[in-house]
């Protein structure tokens, strides 16, 4: 919760725990999207422990700040963040993707408190976030909305339609964060459908744009916590897919690769 905002050091510590726990979950289940979990860990830790105003005891509190995880495949990082934020007990993480589990491979708001949207198909979270921000504006509420997309995900046209609607409606209560790890499922974004200049695109769409080191909690805290202006705000977070595990960093194969027992042991050592 906002009242007990964490320091950059505390956020880094939470992110380290989330990375380790996500690694255990993916290794244990033999399924998951570890590369994109690791690239987004510092972003989610900063949001949940330094920025968002929420109460895990009242997940449907109408005035909560909203976070929409548009890159829904990265449930390792989302579920560990929600767990650390107090939405549920650590024990539930053991059931990751087990038959009947509330921790589905992609998030389901009907199973789990704290989830705002059933994402998984890419390019859905941002339009939903625009609607959430519009509702807040209609209510005259100062609650804020944050949405995280992958960078490959930005290839979906729905994002650009959403960007226009948000700017047109002056949604200064909306922040888009792009996990700019330069890799998608099978290849680098630059070799698939290039995105750059991403900042100039959002600026041309009427957005305030910032670049930030997506693995620097202090920088993330400063950017994500800053008050809004008169426009929606896009934060391009430069990240490394697989961050924190040397043999996973910057390799597309770890998009949904699963570490062997030996690789798992090394990964846990490196994330210690």
């Amino acid at each position: 919760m906002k009242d007990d905002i964490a320091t950059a050091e505390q956020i880094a510590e939470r992110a380290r725990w989330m990375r380790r726990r996500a690694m255990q979950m993916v290794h244990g289940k033999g399924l998951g999207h570890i590369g994109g979990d690791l690239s987004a860990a510092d972003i989610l830790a900063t949001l949940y422990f330094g920025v968002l105003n929420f109460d895990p005891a009242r997940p449907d509190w109408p005035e909560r700040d909203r976070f929409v995880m548009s890159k829904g495949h990265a449930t390792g990082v989302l579920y560990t963040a929600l767990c650390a934020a107090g939405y549920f007990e650590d024990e539930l993480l053991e059931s990751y993707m087990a038959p009947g589990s509330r921790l589905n491979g992609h998030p389901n708001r009907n199973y789990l408190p704290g989830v705002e949207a059933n994402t998984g198909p890419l390019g859905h979270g941002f339009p939903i976030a625009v609607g959430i921000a519009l509702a807040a504006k209609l209510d005259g509420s100062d609650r804020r909305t944050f949405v995280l997309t992958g960078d490959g995900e930005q290839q979906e046209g729905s994002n650009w339609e959403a960007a226009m609607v948000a700017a047109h409606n002056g949604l200064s209560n909306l922040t888009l964060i792009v996990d700019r790890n330069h890799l998608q499922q099978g290849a680098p974004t630059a070799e698939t459908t290039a995105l750059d200049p991403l900042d100039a695109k959002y600026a041309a769409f009427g957005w305030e744009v910032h670049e930030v080191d997506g693995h620097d909690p202090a920088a993330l805290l400063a950017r994500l916590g800053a008050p809004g202006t008169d426009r929606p705000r896009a934060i391009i977070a430069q990240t490394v897919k697989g961050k924190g595990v040397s043999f996973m960093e910057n390799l597309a194969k770890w998009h949904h690769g699963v570490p062997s027992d030996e690789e798992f042991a090394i990964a846990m050592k490196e994330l210690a």
Partner: protein
Amino acid sequence: MMDGASPSSTFDCRKAWAATLEELAASDPRIVAVVNDSVGSSNLAGFQKAFPERLVNVGIAEQVMVGVGAGLANGGKVPFVSAASCFLTGRALEQVKADVVYSGYNVKLVGQSSGVAYGELGATHHSIEDFAWLRALQPLTVIVPADPWETEAAVRWAASHDGPVYLRLSRMQVPDLGPDANGARSFEPGKARVMREGADATIIACGTTVHLALEAADSLAGEGHDVRVLSMHSLSPLDETAVLAAAATGAIVTAEEALVSGGLGGAVAELCAAHAPVPLERVGFTGFQKTGDVATLFADAGLSGQGIAAATRRALSRKAG
């Protein structure tokens, strides 16, 4: 091609799909592949290596992918647009309707890992609504191959046919079903394959459920029931003659890795209700699936040899009553 394989071997039909497409592309320069960051999941790394300039990866953009396919067809190409079924048919449904089927473009839509093959990844990634959605679009030929041989035959037919086709492929392991009940192997869209003859009841299956239906018929034979099994590889156009002949056996069971409503079960029910009312039991899914691996989801839906046999017994008892 699969002759000589031991009956216990199973196959991932994506291999047959990719090998056949590569072979056809070597002699037909019009063939191109269009994908959405799905080279790996479509098994098209070999195609990409052999024909790098004929593989168009539009990125994560399914609506564009299908529209681009229609445009390539306009330019005289024969595009095979290949992506996970859920996104190809769900995200790009209007492009499939307007740009491909309504416009009459010669586009081959190839749905990968369809049904519940993505298991634990959940309902967003399952493609069990596709039968209902695509059966509504006419004239679109919808083909659901049951084994590697049907897959190869379907890809060959799609490439030679001038018109829109949806190939619904799976990555699940299935056995080679061998020749049909007449000892023949022939593939003709709109014509069901009789995989086993029988006069007491008929199980109509397609894709990944055909081998389960055969298992069911085997066990029912031990109980003295003589059950016919059809591989209804063309969901659309449906082989109405074969369905009406099935109705004449007095009891029908449908089995599909899809939503029953609007799916194969829906199609058979529509036809039989109008022309040949008959006891009908339908095995398949009825809605969004809870978290679970493929085996759990299949078992819970009764998609097993035993489950289909039980449904057949129910149909047989209704026939008697």
